[in-house]
Structures are given as C-alpha cells and as structure tokens.
C-alpha cells in the first residue's frame, strides 16, 4: 500500500487493534426500486456491513382509520381495496367478515365459496407479484415478465367478476356485489389447469438458479422465537418454522371444508420464504379447484343483509318499502349493535385484522386495522444488522410487504 493511502496513525482503533473506519450513513428510499413503494431505510454502514438500520415509514399514511370513523360501514369497503393493493379481494373479505361478526350475520355457503375462490385467486396474484418483484431485486427480470403474464389472466377474470382489474370492492357486508357470471367458475378452473405448469416453469427459473440461491439462502434469517415476538404472520412466519395458518387453525368462510397443506420452512431465510410462497400458490390453486368442483347453489347474500345493503335499483324505483329502505341505508347507514369485535384473516401478506369499536348506528366509533406488513417490517432493525449492503435488497424482497397496508 502506498504510504499516502495508508491509514494515519491517529485512526481510531478498537479493542482488538483493528482500525475502525468512519461509519457512513445512507438513506435508502423513500424512492428506491427495491423498497417496493415508499419505505425508507436509514442505515449506518461500516464498509459494506450494515451496523444499524432504522426503517422510516409513514410515507403512504393516508388516514384510513380516520376516514373510517367518518363514513358508514358500507362506504368504507373501497378503502379496504387500497390497503394491500395486491390482494383487494382478500381485504374486502376480511373487512366484510369483521363487520358481519358485529352484525351477527350468517353467510350462505355459496357466498362463502365465492369468497374463498376470490381470496385464493388474490393470494396467487399477490404472491406472483411478490415473486416477480423479488426476482427483479436479485437480478432476474424474466421472472417478472412471466409472473405478470399470469397476473394479467387473473386480472381478466377479476374484471369479468367485479368490473375492475384490482380495486374490486367485491365482498360487501352480508354477501358479495353480484353473483358470479355464467361460466366464470369454468374459466377459473381452466386458468388453474394452465397455471400450474406455468408456475412450475416460472419457479424453475429461480429454485435451482445458483445466483438466486446464493443471494437468498442464509440471508435475512429470522428465528422462530423472533418471528413470534415481533408478531410476524403469513409466509414470513411459516418460513421460520411456525405452522400457523388462520385458514387452518381458526377457519372462517368455510375453509375447514377444503383439503390443503400449510408449507413450513426450516431455516427462516429468504430462500425459505420464497419456497413457502411458491408452495402456497400451488395450494391456493388446489383450494380453488375444490371450491369450483363443489360450488354450492343458493343465495349469494345473507338473509339478514337486507337491512345492510341497498336494495336492487329496479325495486327501489317501483316499491315503496324498498324506497324507504334505500333511503335509510343511504342516510343513516346500516344499523349495527354496540360492541367490540376483532377479526383476523389469513391474507397473502399475513394476518389482516380489523378491530371495530361500535357504539351502535351506521358509523364505526373506531376501526383499527392490524396490518401484517406493519408487523413484518418491524423486525427490520433486527434482521438487517450484520448483513451486507447488497443483501438488504434481497431481505426486503423476501419479506414481501406492501406500504399501502403498512402505513394505512
């Protein structure tokens, strides 16, 4: 080393006599391709090694909880679309079930089956995007193109069912917006048929890819104890070896009828999280095919939902009773009993919870959204420490979070 490049004698040395370089502060985000939205990481680096990582969130805080307190239960459904905007159908369902618990509504089997099918399709769509984005983060652009091809097919089905590509507002309180179109379940089945081989093809680009394994295996290891202590849920928790899946362990919407496996990781590293998500997509397709195979007939709306949702438009214009009903729901909102309910659903990102405090009337007094991404990200200060700078991108990709839900 030339003398002028050597460290001066005055350079700080630590206890073991090694030279301690000056730490560098780096602000990553809020606009950064691998922060999947507007997460910001304030990091302190010692060379290439991260010594401290402080997530700064709130760049997408839109005030959803305050908005909920200012509108009726029905009016809030579109806002749930925009929490985890990769799986709006699953969010709609979680919110609807939470309010139905408050209203004590029994949901008919057909509606439950529709909800299960849509929620599992949403899971596939969310995991596909997570996979594609993870691929980009570690340098595999092709995966993104493959997964978006499949997502567009899903969007086509969503659009046929709900009228929108992904801001669906489909599951309403007491039922769904409308029945499934004729032949739709057959097309869903056809999608699953062709999706499974395509999924294998997509995953085969990564699973045995040397580059991908090197970038993810052993990176961002989360122990079982840490995962529980930080409140991780969803694939991130299961990858750490905790077989917790609310669909299995606390079934809702008729999930107990379906036969599916819960994949569980062993190491809790980024590669395990990737494998768990891949397997979950296969299981979701399995659930969808079962639900389609025994798709029940009957009503797609709960009997008691008449006091909650607006009546059909043609009836409103012709019948006095429905006109009054329509007026009441628009003016006062659906009348709910007073009380407190908390419901969590197994969403693609983890357990999405709604805690509703009602004082009666058509407006919630307080609606707290328990966002899985919020809890999943809270472990970042722990898991990033000691990682190389380049691994941060891989860790973020493997945690697969959505800021809309994290910040609300």
């Amino acid at each position, binding site marked *: 080393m030339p003398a002028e490049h050597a460290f001066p004698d005055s350079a700080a040395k630590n206890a073991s006599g090694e030279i301690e370089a000056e730490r560098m502060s780096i602000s990553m985000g809020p*606009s950064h*391709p691998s922060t999947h*939205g507007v997460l910001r990481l304030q990091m302190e680096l010692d060379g290439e090694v991260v010594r401290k990582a402080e997530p700064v969130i709130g*760049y997408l805080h*839109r005030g959803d909880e305050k908005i909920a307190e200012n509108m009726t239960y029905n009016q809030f459904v579109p806002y749930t679309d925009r929490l985890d905007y990769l799986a709006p159908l699953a969010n709609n369902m979680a919110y609807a079930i939470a309010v139905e618990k408050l209203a004590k509504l029994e949901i008919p089997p057909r509606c439950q089956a529709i909800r299960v099918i849509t929620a599992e399709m949403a899971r596939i769509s969310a995991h596909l995007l997570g996979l594609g984005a993870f691929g980009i983060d570690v340098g595999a652009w092709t995966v993104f193109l493959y997964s978006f*091809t499949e997502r*567009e097919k899903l969007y086509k089905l969503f659009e046929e069912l709900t009228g929108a590509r992904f801001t669906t507002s489909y599951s309403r309180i007491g039922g769904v917006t409308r029945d499934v179109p004729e032949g739709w379940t057959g097309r869903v089945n056809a999608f699953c048929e062709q999706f499974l081989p395509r999924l294998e093809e997509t995953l085969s680009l990564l699973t045995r890819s040397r580059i991908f394994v090197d970038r993810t295996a052993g990176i961002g290891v989360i122990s079982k104890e840490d995962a529980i202590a930080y409140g991780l849920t969803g694939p991130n928790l299961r990858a750490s070896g905790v077989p917790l899946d609310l669909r299995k362990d606390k079934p809702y919407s008729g999930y107990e009828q379906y036969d599916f496996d819960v994949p569980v990781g062993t190491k809790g590293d980024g590669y395990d999280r990737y494998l768990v998500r891949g397997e979950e997509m296969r299981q979701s397709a399995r659930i969808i095919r079962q639900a389609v195979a025994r798709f029940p007939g009957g009503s797609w709306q709960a009997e008691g939902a008449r006091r909650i949702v607006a009546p059909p438009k043609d009836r409103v214009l012709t019948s006095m009773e429905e006109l009054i009903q329509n007026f009441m729901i628009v003016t006062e909102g659906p009348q709910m009993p007073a009380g407190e309910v908390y419901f969590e659903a197994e969403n693609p990102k983890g357990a999405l919870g709604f805690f509703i405090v009602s004082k009666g009337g058509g407006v919630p007094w307080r609606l707290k959204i328990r966002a899985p991404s919020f809890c999943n990200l809270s472990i970042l200060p722990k898991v990033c420490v000691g990682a190389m700078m380049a691994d941060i991108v891989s860790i973020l990709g493997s945690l697969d979070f959505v800021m809309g839900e994290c910040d609300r």
Partner: protein
Amino acid sequence: MVASNSELAYNSKIEGDVIVSRADAVINWIRSNSMWPMPMGLACCAIELMGVAASRFDIARFGAEVMRFSPKQADVMIVAGTVTYKMSSAVRRIYDQMLAPKWVIAMGACASTGGMYRSYAVLQGVDRILPVDVYVSGCPPRPEALLDALLKLQEKVKREPSASKLLSA
C-alpha cells in the same frame, strides 16, 4: 463562376441523403419518441404502472420502457399513487433533480386531486408542488389510459418551440 464551397451548391451525389426540416420538428421527434420515465411509484397505481411495463401492455412500443429510478436520466415523471404530505418533499426534490426538458404525468385520481383520500395526511393533488402536463383519471387508471396519456404527452411535446427554447436558455 464556380462556387468555392461545393457543399453549398446543389450536389446530385447526396440527393436522398438529405432531408430538409425544421429544427423544432427534428428535436421534438427525437424527444417525444424516447421519453424515459421516472416511475414515482407510490401506491396502488404503481401496480398498473408495472403492468404497463410488463408483457401484455408493453410500453416499449412507445419508446418509454426505460424506467429510470435515477432522476438525472429521466425525462418524464409518472406520479403513480397517493402523494402524502410526508412524501411531498421527496417528490419535489426528485423533480428538481431531473434535467430539463422534463414533463410530469399525474397518474390516477390521488395524484391528480387527492382522489378519495380527503384527509389530513394527503396532498390534495401533486400539482400543488410541481407542474403537471397530463392528468389521467381513474382509480387506478387502466394501463391503456396511461398509454393514452403518454401519447397525449407526445403530442404536446411535438408542439413545443424547442429550438428557440434551447437558444434562449
């Protein structure tokens, strides 16, 4: 009399290699067909923005597939999603770092007006902090709508007096 500079006179040998045009037309033609976007992906609209870049809609057909997160390399900022007050200063700083000429597309209701988020935390339209060229309606807009916005922006760029701007700058 023979012209000393043969390039100034008619030369049949280079006929067909020369196109006479206005500088504006040439500059605008180049600019409008290679707009590199700065994807300011903030919320839900960013997913449709990714969809535009992906296989089915393929924004590369319009010369705008080169998404650059570095503002120095970008020409058009696509503000896709809700701009909150906390985020607004970052958006403005990134806009300031982009090199002129630069354009802005406000994608979706939130970026255009605040949309359905009339609340204490949301900037009510990104045009409060930076000039917007094209607004796209929708929550989120379909990918086709964004492509249409890009075409609209290209039309707008083609009408700009680019040469005089360059000379006066």
